[in-house]
């Protein structure tokens, strides 16, 4: 389904940023009931359970229910109070004062105070912790706690994205003081569910935390069975062993939707994909060659072929309903003549350019996409071949060593534009594995970082997108849909997806009597 179509069919239904579609039967019981154990077929294996140290979406998806962050976002991605009942920023943009709620209890029975916040922030910032998001605190000069419910964070320089980065558990999570050592295999937080146990590689058990400050959840327990094989997950759903599964394989969605006994929840977007050029590889130093490759790709056909149409093409990687999304930016159409002409202008005649496409088997649809693109590259007179890499090989060759010519990757919707554009396209960006170095982008992304006015910031990021597109720094392909399949008894599915599009929250989910 195209994005606009998705928008018109579903936004009337749900509204908001995350666009839902629900098909199939749901048992008609309007009043939520308490009780029951929900068994969820989780598509991935959880790793290190320490919220600071884990970089995987799979673990974050489960821990979303165990932890809470100091602030959070609403469905329109505005930063709103959470564990802090209010927050304010000084006029010079350097001081943030958080006033904490007085009724937050941790799962260990302790009450949350400002000391826990200070401990959590300092632990994340400490390089010895090995925290994935430690750079969020790079500009922090001091964290003061004048009383039990006040935290004052002072920055050495303006860092506009600071507050919104705290809205995600990775940096903004509050853990009990001194609990760092145990977080890795027995996480303790103040979320709606208490971690009970993990049978590694098998299942994670969560139990309702009755003293949750946001009111107790409906479910007694959530058991997340880790089932990485999509067909095994689907069989479990069909036999009734599982109440719900996430990530239905794209080629099986139509079949499940047609099944009158199951519900399908799909939302937009889950993540986005792009094709990468190594800007150190001589031919790709010439923007004409990069543009030529863009002209070889029919994005709509590719979406259909590799993802069975489960997503929407886009030329902008900004969160689709965010202020910085440049909707008017169109993708280049497929045009082999133009592609050949551009290659000729760059000095490459037919079959004079050969490239190797490195793609990871970790994402099977990337392999399928590369195979389709390979044919198009050949039709445009490029001698192309594919090298399939395991995840660890891809990370080591492409991400760390930058030893590739052309590749493909996806990212979860990094809705904070600084996190997205600075990290990926600034010369100094942490995720700039394509060795991109563009003076305009560097200047714009640095300027946005110290621009506090939201409208002004959004305008800068739109300019960034224009440069990415004009210079074909990468080829942005599409946003991919997220999906859940569920038994009719599972209710409250409209609340299950976190505004970030990846995490699942079970606070308001309940089981109807079937």
């Amino acid at each position, binding site marked *: 389904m195209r994005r606009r179509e998705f928008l018109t069919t579903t936004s009337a239904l749900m509204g908001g940023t995350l666009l839902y579609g629900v098909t199939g039967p749901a048992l008609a019981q309007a009043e939520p009931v308490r009780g029951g154990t929900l068994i969820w077929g989780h598509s991935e*294996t959880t*790793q*290190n*359970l*320490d919220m600071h*140290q*884990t*970089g*995987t979406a799979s673990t974050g998806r489960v821990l979303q229910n165990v932890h809470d962050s100091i602030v959070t976002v609403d469905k329109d991605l505005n930063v709103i109070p959470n564990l802090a009942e209010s927050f304010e920023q000084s006029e010079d943009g350097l001081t943030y004062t958080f006033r904490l709620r007085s009724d937050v209890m941790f799962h260990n029975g302790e009450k949350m105070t400002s000391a826990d916040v200070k401990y959590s922030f300092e632990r994340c910032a400490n*390089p*010895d*912790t*090995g*925290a*994935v*998001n*430690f*750079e969020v605190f790079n500009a922090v000069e001091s964290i003061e706690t004048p009383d039990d419910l006040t935290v004052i964070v002072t920055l050495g320089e303006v860092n506009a994205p600071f507050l919104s980065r705290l809205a995600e558990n990775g940096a903004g999570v509050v853990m009990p003081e001194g609990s760092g050592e145990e977080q*890795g*295999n027995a996480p303790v937080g103040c979320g709606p569910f208490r971690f009970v146990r*993990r*049978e*590694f*590689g*098998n*299942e994670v058990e969560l139990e309702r935390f009755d003293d949750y400050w946001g009111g107790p959840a409906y479910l007694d327990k959530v058991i997340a*069975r*880790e*089932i*990485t*094989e999509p067909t*095994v997950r689907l*069989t*479990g759903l*069909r*036999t009734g*062993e599982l109440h719900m599964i996430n990530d239905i394989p794209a080629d099986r969605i139509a079949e499940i939707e047609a099944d009158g006994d199951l519900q399908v929840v799909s939302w937009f977007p889950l993540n986005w994909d792009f094709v990468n050029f190594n800007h150190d590889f001589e031919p790709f130093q010439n923007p004409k060659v990069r543009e030529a490759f863009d002209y070889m790709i029919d994005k709509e056909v590719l979406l259909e072929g590799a993802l069975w149409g489960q997503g929407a093409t886009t030329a902008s990687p900004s969160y689709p309903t965010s202020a910085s999304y440049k909707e008017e930016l169109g993708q280049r159409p497929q045009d082999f003549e133009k592609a050949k002409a551009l290659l000729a202008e760059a000095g490459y005649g037919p079959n004079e350019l050969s490239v190797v496409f490195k793609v990871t088997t970790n994402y099977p649809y990337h392999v399928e996409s590369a195979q389709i693109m390979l044919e198009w590259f050949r039709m445009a007179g490029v001698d192309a071949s594919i090298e399939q890499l*395991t*995840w*660890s*090989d891809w*990370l*080591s*060759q492409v*991400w*760390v060593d930058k030893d590739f010519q052309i590749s493909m*990757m996806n*990212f979860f919707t990094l809705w904070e534009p600084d996190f997205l554009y600075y*990290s990926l396209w600034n010369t100094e960006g*942490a*995720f700039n594995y394509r060795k991109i170095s563009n003076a305009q982008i560097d200047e714009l992304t640095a300027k946005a970082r110290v621009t506090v006015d939201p409208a002004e910031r959004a305008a800068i990021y739109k300019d960034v997108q224009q440069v990415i597109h004009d210079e074909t720094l990468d080829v942005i392909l599409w946003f991919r849909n997220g999906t859940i399949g569920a038994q009719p008894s599972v209710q409250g599915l409209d609340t299950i997806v976190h505004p970030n599009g990846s995490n699942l929250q079970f606070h308001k989910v309940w089981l109807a009597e079937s």
Partner: protein
Amino acid sequence: MSYLLNRLFSMVLTLFLISAITFAVTNILPGDVAMMIMGTQSNPEALAGLRESLGLNDPLLVQYGRWIGGMLTGDWGTSLVFKEPIAPLLLQKMTASGLLVLFSMTIALTCAIPLGVWAAVHANRWQDTAASSTAMLGVSLPDFFWGIMLILLFARGLGWLPSSGFVDPADDFGGAVRHALLPSLALGLGLMAHLTRMTRATMTGILNQEFIRVARAKGLNESTVVWRYGLANAVGPVMTVAGLQIGYLFGSIIVIESLFNYTGMGWLTYQALLNRDIPLIQASVFVIAAVVMLSNLIVDLLYAVVDPRIRLS
């Protein structure tokens, strides 16, 4: 006794060599565990910090010494990726795989021995053809095919057994058996075919030997001849093959484990390798190697029990 001591000594030596080779090879592989933990969230600064905190910057000999020292003092360490203590993790996965191996071996032997004997007794007649064809079918089709068929029939169709998952027998023995049954059947079918062919071949040879003719000439009834005289002599070779299969199964049941989401030793070792989690790789390979060697040793010792002609020295 000195035979046993010798064997145990050579086992220790082999295990030490295996651990050194595993350590060397996993360090040659591209990428490291820090990269796998951070994935596409990593940046050079954070990676460097994580490497330091995991002790990956220490010289290789120091890292290996640390591991072997830990092993000798009973400290198997903690998985770097999953932050789980390794010893209980291995115990749990060994229990899971052990249950599968035990069940599939029981299923295989219970069916294979009578079938193989039946085929040998009726050599070159229709019974032989029927038994051999059944065995051939079992060997020719991969175990994941049987797995899918069993899921379709018993889980999807009849709804008698769960399609996936593992339950710890300490928590719920009945549940553990129910969860292990389908994967064990899938494994057991291929194994059974193998052992049927082995039993048939051995028994055919034995039934043509002089002492069997003498037994028959003495007027002993046929079942005594076949089961008491024939099979007693065939048990040795069949046991050897079965014993080798036990060790092999522990490391190779990964396909069936994935198909049934029954996470055992095969799965754990594969995860450890994929994630370059060196302490976990070391420990899993070590345990699998020890199991293979121990099962071989036990088979050799049993040989002396079932065949008094054999003296171990």
